[in-house]
Structure formats: C-alpha cells, structure tokens
C-alpha cells in the first residue's frame, strides 16, 4: 500500500502536500462554501431558517446604509492602497538600488519589525499621536504653526486612512523590493548608453519592469484592508465606520449571521471585481507598451 503511494514523483509530491491541502480544504474551502450557503438563509434570534431566500441580498440593495458603508470602505481601501504604494515605492527603490548588498537584509528587517508588533496597541497609539492633546497637535502648537488643535485628523475617515497606511506599509514595500531586485541592471546601463536620461530610463525601463511587484503590492494591501474593523472602530468616530464594522455587528451583537455573511460576500465580490479589473488594465497597459 505504502510503496504504491510513493511509487511515482507525482504521488510522493501529492502525499507530501496533502496535510496542508487537507487542512486548507477543511478549514478554508469548506467554511467559505458554508458562508455562501448561509447567506441565502435567514436567522430569527437563535433559530436558523434554512429555506433558500435572496432576502439578505435584497435588504443590502434596498437599505442605503449598506451601500454607503460599502462605498466608504472601498474608498478608504483604495485611498490607503494608493497612498501606501506611492510612499512605499521610493523606499523599496532606495533599498534595492542604493543600499550596499550586505546591508539590504538589515533594512528590510527594520522595515518589517513594526509590522509584527502589537497591532491593537499600535492603532491605539495613533490616537495618541493624532488626538486633541496628541503629539501632532502639541508639537504644532509649540512651534506656533497653529493656534488651536487640529480636529480633522482624528475620529474621521482621514485618521482611518493614516493608520491603515502605516499598518500595511511593509506589505507594500516587500513585493516591490523583490521585483526591483530581479531587474537586470545591465538593461539600465543599456538604456543610458542608448541616450536615455536617468529620468526617462526610470519611466521606460525600471517602472515597467517593476510592475509585477507593484501589482502584488496593490492587491496585498487593497484586499485585506477591506476586512479591518479595529482601525475604523478606534479611529473612525461615528462617521468613519466601515463595512467590516457592520459585518462584525451583525455577527456578534445583532445575531443576524446570515445578513453578516451576505455582507461579507458582497464586500469580497466588490474587492475581487476591482482587483481583477486592475490586473486586467495593468496587463493591457504593459502590452500596449511593447
């Protein structure tokens, strides 16, 4: 039996990969299927009614609150992605092109450390930084740049965007860095030899070649940010709540898991659709160039 299982390379490989595969099927694929099924059911307090219905989706479409939250969530995730990737690119470029090879790991290590440490407390500390008596306000007051504390930087969407952009920074830097590292440096020399300036070489050679990393960075920031409810809860105030807060409330406070499931699915579908559109447009852009 055993010798039959390990007879060919393909079988040995499948056998080897089967523990993580079975785990992912049982605890990822199956639950994702369950959540889809659940979204077509209804719940009345503790009893779940398993007759197929589109009521949850109808409610999401009909009540403007869900649409508003979804729209705001997508706006926040989009802005966070744009800001994060834009700020991260020069750092990745610097580490890849200007840091001595033996120092690169150290830089990457320094960049990733804050990412691993106490997410909750980090978010809370942004409150301390951006708050009414916070670091930014006391600092600016002391320098005399402002006369009274700024209030537009806490308990609104801006605060959520700043905090999320901070939390996801390493996620954006690492894929861009990897893509930049793969660029054959002689191509840049060739471009310079052929009369391009440093500036045009960057836009015509470096940037297009780093596109896979940029796309990965965009996706790895855009998709997970839609599911964060901690930052909007702590930083967003009344007007800064997002779809993830609503999903959380439906599940834990309102005991309406089917509606929560439907909301989660709608949010995921929107994010996936936008991501696919982005990848598609990016491919067209790259193809158009060549």
């Amino acid at each position, binding site marked *: 039996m055993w010798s039959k299982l390990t007879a060919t390379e393909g079988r040995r*490989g499948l056998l080897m*990969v089967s523990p993580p595969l079975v785990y992912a099927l049982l605890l990822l694929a199956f639950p994702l299927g369950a959540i889809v099924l659940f979204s077509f059911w209804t719940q009345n307090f503790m009893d*779940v009614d398993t007759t197929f219905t589109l009521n949850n989706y109808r409610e999401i479409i009909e009540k403007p609150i869900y649409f508003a939250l979804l729209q705001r969530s997508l706006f926040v995730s989009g802005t966070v992605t744009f800001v994060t990737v834009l700020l991260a690119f020069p750092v990745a470029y610097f580490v890849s092109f200007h840091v001595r090879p033996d120092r690169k790991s150290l830089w990457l290590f320094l960049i990733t450390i804050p990412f691993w440490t106490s*997410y909750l407390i*980090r978010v809370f500390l942004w409150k*301390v930084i951006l*708050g009414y008596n916070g670091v930014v306000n006391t600092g600016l007051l002391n320098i005399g740049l402002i006369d009274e504390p700024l209030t537009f930087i806490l308990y609104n969407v801006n605060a959520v965007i700043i905090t999320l952009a901070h939390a996801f920074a390493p996620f954006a830097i*690492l894929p861009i860095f990897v893509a930049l590292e793969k660029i054959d440096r002689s191509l840049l020399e060739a471009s310079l030899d052929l009369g391009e300036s440093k500036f045009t070489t960057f836009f015509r050679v470096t940037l297009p070649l780093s596109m896979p990393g940029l796309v990965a960075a965009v996706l*790895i920031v855009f998709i997970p940010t839609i599911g964060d409810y901690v930052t909007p809860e702590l930083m967003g105030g009344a007007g800064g709540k997002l779809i993830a807060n609503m999903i959380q409330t439906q599940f834990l406070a309102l005991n309406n898991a089917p509606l929560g499931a439907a909301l989660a699915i709608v949010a995921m579908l929107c994010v996936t659709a936008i991501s696919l559109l982005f990848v598609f447009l990016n491919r067209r852009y790259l193809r158009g160039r060549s």
Partner: protein
Amino acid sequence: MSLRIYAIAYLIFLYAPIILLPIFAFNDATIIAFPLSGFTTEWFGELMTTKALHGAVQNSIFIAVITASLSTILGICAARAGAMYNFPLKRGILGLVMLPLVLPEIIVAVSLLIVVVQILDLGLSNWTVIAAHVLICTPFCIAILNGAFQNLDPSMEEAAMDLGESRWSAFRLVTFPLVMPGIISSFLIAFTISLDEFIIAFFLTGANPTMPVYIWGLLRFPSSLPIVMALGTILVALSIILLTIAEILRRRGMARVGVKDKGGFL
C-alpha cells in the same frame, strides 16, 4: 542622497507609535497625552498584580505554541513538496494553501464562526482560535521555509538513500539539520503572529479571552490605559527579541544551504 533622507523619514514614520510606548509606560500620569509629568514604574507593578491578565497571557501563549508547531509542520510539508516534487495541480494546490495571506481576516473569522457554531454546533474555545491561527500562519511559515528548502540539492538525500538509508532517515539525517534554522525561524514568526492576532481571535475566542482580546477590553477604560502602555512595551520588546532571533536563524539557514540572501522572505 535625498532618497536616503526620505527612507530614513519613512522609518521614523513606521516607528513613531512604537517609540511612544515606553515613554507613556514610564510616565507618571493616568492620561496618555503630552506634556509628560514624571517617571514611575507603577504601571509595570500593576501588571504583576492583575490576575485576569495573567490568565489571558497564559491562554495566548498556549494558543501561540500549538499554532506555531502545527503551522510549521504544515509549512514544512508544503515547502518541501513545492521545492522537491512535481505533481498534478501543483500551482492550484499551493495557491489555495497560500490564499489566507491575501484573504481579509474577517472573512476567515466569520466563515469559521459559522462552521463551528451553526453547522457543527460546537462551543468556542482556545482550539477554535488555534484552528484559525494555523490557517493564517501557515502561508508565512511556507514563505520562510521556501528559502530553506528551495535551493537544497536533492542529490544529497538521494546519495544517502543509495548508501542504504530509508527515505525517512535520509530526510532526518541529511535534510533536517540543513533546514533546522529555517524551521525555528518559522516557528518564531508563527508564534509572534498568533500571540498578536486580534481580528480573528475576537470572533472565535471562548470564555477565556486571549491577550489581545483582553487588551481590547481594557482600551475602553481610560483608567487602564497606562497599564496597556506598560504591557505593550513588554510585548514589543519581546517581539523584537523573537524576531531578531528568527532573522538570524533564517539567514544562517540560507547560508547553510548555500543561498545568497536576497533579504526578506516575502
């Protein structure tokens, strides 16, 4: 030059919240704001006497140790299969296993919640948190272990088998020592992720909260914020130590199999 200045400014931005932690942890005031009022170690003392916290810490460590062990074992299987074998549907299978890396955590949390509570009709406990944490930690373990397994020369194990070792003993005697640093590194990273994870734990935790869930409760009470700062300082120091060890081992492991370190593991 200006790029260097920008990169350093960016690092300061990244570290800004963490630098504030010890400042307020030792500040003799109950309000977390400037100006500072004096030095105290009172908040650390209070940590020692808070019973509920100790329970939460024990829970979290239990969850993190089991999560780190399981996800490292699953990571070894996936990384080894990915590096040494060709098999049908390889990309699809590895893609599915890596999927939690980009999946919003709330989706993982609610889908498991539905399965555990509504379909299996089981209660929530530390084990439900562990089940979810293994799922999200495994992709990180695979990413780290790939560095250790990918450039391993398969002919070394083959040589051991030609010389009479079984497939398993060849792995244990030849490959295992070579990838050991990567394995410990993967364990430590998974441990750190699990210890710190809140979004999923909040949904799946049972009667006994994990440490982040406990901290979340504290954040609502202004009077307990200085304790949170003290706790945070300890946690950050601990994470930095663990991550530094993990990084050193990861690099040693890559050097052992003769890979040029390209820096970072993602």
